[in-house]
Structures are given as structure tokens and as C-alpha cells.
């Protein structure tokens, strides 16, 4: 901060920034080794560092003002399933040959470059691997069999009985999706929020999908900012322990507050909208999301989140997804969604055309989930 901004200390935001700066600079000595560095330089320096210095530790990565440094562009694509498949039910981690087989089997199932199956399936696969993130066909480097790390069985915990009102909401949603899948949506409300370009994978907790799995993190004193590529909604996370916004202010992406626990950024998010079709159909009123981001090494951030919702599951559950630094030659792109949302128009126009021709809804064959 330059001298001309000494006066800024009178504004609340800056008091906080300066406060955390002096505190953390006092507590944490500057790392002897330069932190993350420019991506290109880092790549060039890596081989030498291998023999000369011990591997970088989480605590080596610091911003100039002393916070743990999570900055970079990260990709969370993986084929490791959220829940452990029954075939590997007894294994948390696979050995190298098992892992290779597991990866190949999943990749074969997900691949859209296959030409087997019915002609309808084949037509659906026209949206093929050319359009997809190739990293979505690789399992995590640690060869885990599920992204869920707790409960130990790698499965979403059993559900609790839900209220009749919520059951009706789920049934209505399922009926709307069935109309959509059959090519006969009544209205834009029959589409899921991603089709309507309201929220996509920018809604926490972050899950890998077929493409645009990139997240850029930029930090400033007192803040961490996570910018998901899809769909360009920056998440501004204050670290100053301010209270959450009032309970009548509800947000599609929730209201995040962050703090550091050692080298880990812990984000608590509340105030989700009730009409969000929230993660795994949890109850927005009782849904509690805690995310943890930890810099592991130059190329990895561990992203971990814990879901708690006593109105939906019998116990909390935790997911871990490694975020990998992307090649510096790659970059974030603008994911314009609503600006050219031809789908929203085509799906509805198509349905009205079918009605005019007297066609009835016929469910079309679905591809495996788009992980």
C-alpha cells in the first residue's frame, strides 16, 4: 500500500486489511523459497528444485501479506465417481493395475466416441468427446474409488423421512424433468437451472462436469475470490468475521464467509434460496455447507466439503476433490450462457410444434450421467 493511502485506514474495509497484514506478517516469516512464482518460471525451475530442495510444503505458499496462497487457475475434472461403485465396495484406494482397469472401465462407460448401442443413443453421442474436457476420463491421482471420503463406505448416507411438502416438490420436479426429457416441456420452469443459465457449476459445492471445470482464485488482503469459469459468477469471500447477511436476503449461490485454520481456507455458506433445487435435493432451511481449500503443492489444491442436513441425511458426509493447476498455455474463457441461450427457445418451440402435429411425449434413451 503506498503512502498516499495511509488515510484509507479510516475506512472499515482497510482497517481489516491492514490488521490482517500486520498480524500475519508478524506471525508468519516470509518463506525462504519463493512461493508459487510465475507458472512458466515454476515449470522451468521444477527439475532443479527436485534434487536441490525438499518438496514444497503447504506452508511454503504465502501471499506477500502473509496469507496462505491459493492463487492460480485450477481444474477439478475427474472420472472418480462421487459414490463408490459396488464392484470396488471393499477398496478405498486401488493399486496401480487395479486403478488402470477402473479408469478404463469408467472411461469406456462415459465416452461419447463409442458407436455401439441403438441409433437414438448414437445420435445423442453426436455431442462427442471433442466438446468435453479430456480430464473427465481420468480418475484422481491418489487412486481413490470414490470422491466421498466420509462415511468410510464412500456412499451418501441413508436418508431420513422427508416431509410431504418436500416430497411433492420432488415429485413435481421429477415430472417437469420427465416432460423435458421427452421433448415436451410446458414452460421454461420445466428446465433445470443450468439450462436456464441461472446457476451452473458455479453453485457450491463445486462438482466436476463435462467441461469448463476451471476455477480461478485471486486473493487480496482480507478476501479470497473464487471465479468459476461456468458461469462467470465471482464468489467474493470476506475473511473479516463479519456476520452473514440478514435471513431475509437469500442468494442463489449462498452467502460465504471464510477464515483460515492453519493453511486451510474454511468457507461457511448460508442463506441459500429456497427455490434453488439445492445440492442433492437437500432442505435449504437446514442445509449447512463447509468447504475447505488447502494448497498441497505447486500444482495441487485439495478441495473438500462437508454437507450437513438433518432434514435429509442421517449423518454429515464429506467429499474430497483434487484441483490441479492448469497448463499456463490454457486459460479461463468467458462462459456466456444466457446471451445465446438458443436451447431455451428451441426446446419450447419444438414442444409446441410437436403438439401442433399431435405427437405425444416419448422418453428418449438417456446417456450415462455427464460426469
Amino acid at each position, binding site marked *: *500500500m*503506498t503512502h*498516499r*493511502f495511509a488515510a*484509507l485506514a*479510516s*475506512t*472499515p*474495509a*482497510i482497517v481489516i*486489511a491492514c490488521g490482517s497484514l500486520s498480524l500475519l506478517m508478524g506471525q508468519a516469516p516470509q518463506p525462504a523459497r*519463493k*512461493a*508459487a*512464482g*510465475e507458472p512458466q518460471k515454476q515449470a522451468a525451475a521444477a527439475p532443479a528444485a527436485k534434487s536441490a530442495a525438499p518438496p514444497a510444503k503447504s506452508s511454503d*505458499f504465502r*501471499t*506477500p*501479506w502473509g496469507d496462505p*496462497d491459493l*492463487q*492460480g487457475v485450477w481444474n477439478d475434472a475427474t472420472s472418480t465417481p462421487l459414490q463408490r461403485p459396488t464392484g470396488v465396495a471393499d477398496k478405498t484406494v486401488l493399486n496401480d493395475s487395479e486403478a488402470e482397469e477402473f479408469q478404463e472401465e469408467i472411461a469406456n462407460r462415459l465416452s461419447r466416441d463409442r458407436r455401439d448401442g441403438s441409433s437414438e443413443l448414437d445420435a445423442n453421442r453426436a455431442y462427442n468427446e471433442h466438446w468435453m474436457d479430456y480430464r473427465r476420463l481420468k480418475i484422481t491421482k491418489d487412486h481413490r474409488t470414490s470422491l466421498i471420503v466420509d462415511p468410510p463406505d464412500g456412499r451418501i448416507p441413508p436418508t431420513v423421512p422427508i416431509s410431504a411438502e418436500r416430497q411433492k416438490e420432488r415429485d413435481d420436479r421429477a415430472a417437469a424433468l420427465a416432460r423435458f426429457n421427452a421433448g415436451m416441456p*410446458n*414452460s*421454461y420452469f420445466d428446465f433445470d437451472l443450468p439450462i*436456464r443459465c*441461472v*446457476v451452473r457449476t*458455479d453453485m457450491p459445492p463445486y462438482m466436476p462436469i463435462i467441461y469448463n471445470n476451471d476455477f*480461478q482464485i*485471486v*486473493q*487480496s*488482503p482480507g478476501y479470497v*475470490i473464487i*471465479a468459476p469459469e461456468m*458461469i*462467470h*459468477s*465471482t464468489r*467474493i469471500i470476506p475473511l473479516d468475521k*463479519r*456476520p452473514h*447477511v440478514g435471513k431475509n436476503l437469500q*442468494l*442463489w449461490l449462498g452467502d460465504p464467509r471464510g477464515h483460515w485454520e492453519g493453511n486451510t481456507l474454511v468457507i461457511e455458506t448460508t442463506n441459500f434460496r429456497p427455490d434453488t433445487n439445492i445440492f442433492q435435493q437437500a432442505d435449504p432451511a437446514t442445509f449447512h455447507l463447509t468447504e475447505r481449500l488447502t494448497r498441497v503443492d505447486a500444482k495441487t489444491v485439495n478441495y473438500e466439503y462437508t454437507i450437513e442436513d438433518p432434514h435429509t441425511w442421517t449423518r454429515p458426509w464429506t467429499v474430497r476433490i483434487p484441483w490441479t493447476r492448469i497448463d499456463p498455455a490454457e*486459460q479461463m*474463457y*468467458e462462459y*456466456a450462457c*444466457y*446471451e445465446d441461450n*438458443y436451447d*431455451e*427457445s428451441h426446446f*419450447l*418451440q419444438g*414442444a*409446441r410444434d410437436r403438439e401442433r402435429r399431435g405427437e405425444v411425449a416419448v422418453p428418449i434413451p438417456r446417456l450415462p450421467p455427464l460426469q
Partner: protein
Amino acid sequence: MPDGHPDLNGYWQALVTADWDLQDHEAQAGPKPEINGVYGAGPAGQSIVEGGVIPYRPEALAKKKKNFETRAMSDVSSDKTWHNLGDPEMKCYMPGVPRANYLPFPFRIVQSSGASTPYMIISYEYANSTRIVRMNTKAEAPIPSWMGWSRGSWDGDTLVIDVSGFREETWFDRAGDYHSDELHVVERYTPVSPFHLMYEATIEDPKVFTRPWKVRFPLYRRMEQNFQILEFKCAPFTEEMLYGRFVKKPTP
């Protein structure tokens, strides 16, 4: 900041009425006054354009006038003519630059320091628009985009952002002021007090204007306690307008 540059981090907002019209404008009823009354009306304001007037080419001025006449219309029945009618702001499309900076919504400048991130981010409340500002790079835009390709550098205490690689569909205001895909904007953000940035943008587009021109206005720091950007996810506010005609009508 630790690297010696001024600290522009914060929530900022313009107070000008330029989103209604960059040039001098009287108070106006706005479209559909028979429905909206004063709710749809706009305030008067003085031009933020240096010299007062935008130097349009004659044929371009005719298009601006047509834009104004059709500003509140939309037609998404054909992909080919999708963007032909109406102000993109009314349809919740990303606003482009410099319009994002004088919409009546706050935005946050995110400025880091040190070698680990050669980026800044500008995050706007309106439509969750985001700009990634790449510092000290000569790399050209890989593809055209709504918010443009932003390359930042410091000129003393002034943050300079060179923005190119625009799509042609954004407008400058509700008066129909527009540009082509050759738009080039150079922005200057200069701290003039702890609570103000002076903002200046030089706008160049040889297809539409006879010479480069400038807009200039202050940005004010939002000072409310615990201020934060909320959400203006406006797509749901426009779906009936854009897609309502394709929705199934109840059988009589």
C-alpha cells in the same frame, strides 16, 4: 499494496445517469409508460462524453436512432436474428465495457500483489459479469467476448486497462448508442482520494465513429458497514418476455 501500487481493492459504483444516455438527456418516461408510469422513467443528466457529443459516422447515427426506437423489443424466434432487436441490458445480457462501470450497480475490484498471480478481477453485481484483467501481457484475445479481453498495466498510480476482442452486440446505453466488433477501449482508473477513483475511457471504433472519444466520471467507494455485492441474477426476470410466447397455453 506490498508491491508499491495503489490499493484499488474495494466496492465501487458510479452515480452518473449515463446508462440512460451517455449524452445530455432530459428526464424521460421510458418505454411502455401506460404500464410502468414513473417506475419505468429515467432521470435527466449531463453528458459524460468529452465535448458533449459522440462523433458518429452519418450512417451509424441512423442506426443508433433505430436502436432507440426498438430498444424495448425482443425476438428470439430465430437464431439468425436473435440479437437484432432491443437493448441487451433489458435481456440480462452481459453489459460490456465501459457500460458495466456506469450501470446503477456496485462492483468489486480485486487486486492481488506479488508474483503468484498476474491477474486482477473485476466482479460486477449486474448479471454476475466478471472481467479477468491480465497484467503486463501482449497476448491477443483468443475469441471475441461480451466483456472483452482486458490487459492491465500501471502508469504511475493509474491502472490502465486496454480492452479489445469484443463481440459487437453490446450497447453503451438505453439510448441505442452502440459499437461494432472493432471496438477498442482504453480505461484509466486513477485514485484521487481514499474514497474516489477518477475513471476515464477512450473509445475507438473506426466503423462507427469518425474519431476516438472519451467518457469521464468518478467512481465512489461504497462505505456502508459490511457492504457486499449481493446478486442481480436477472435471467429469470426476462424469461417471460423472451420465451413466454413459446410456453404451453392452458386449454380453454
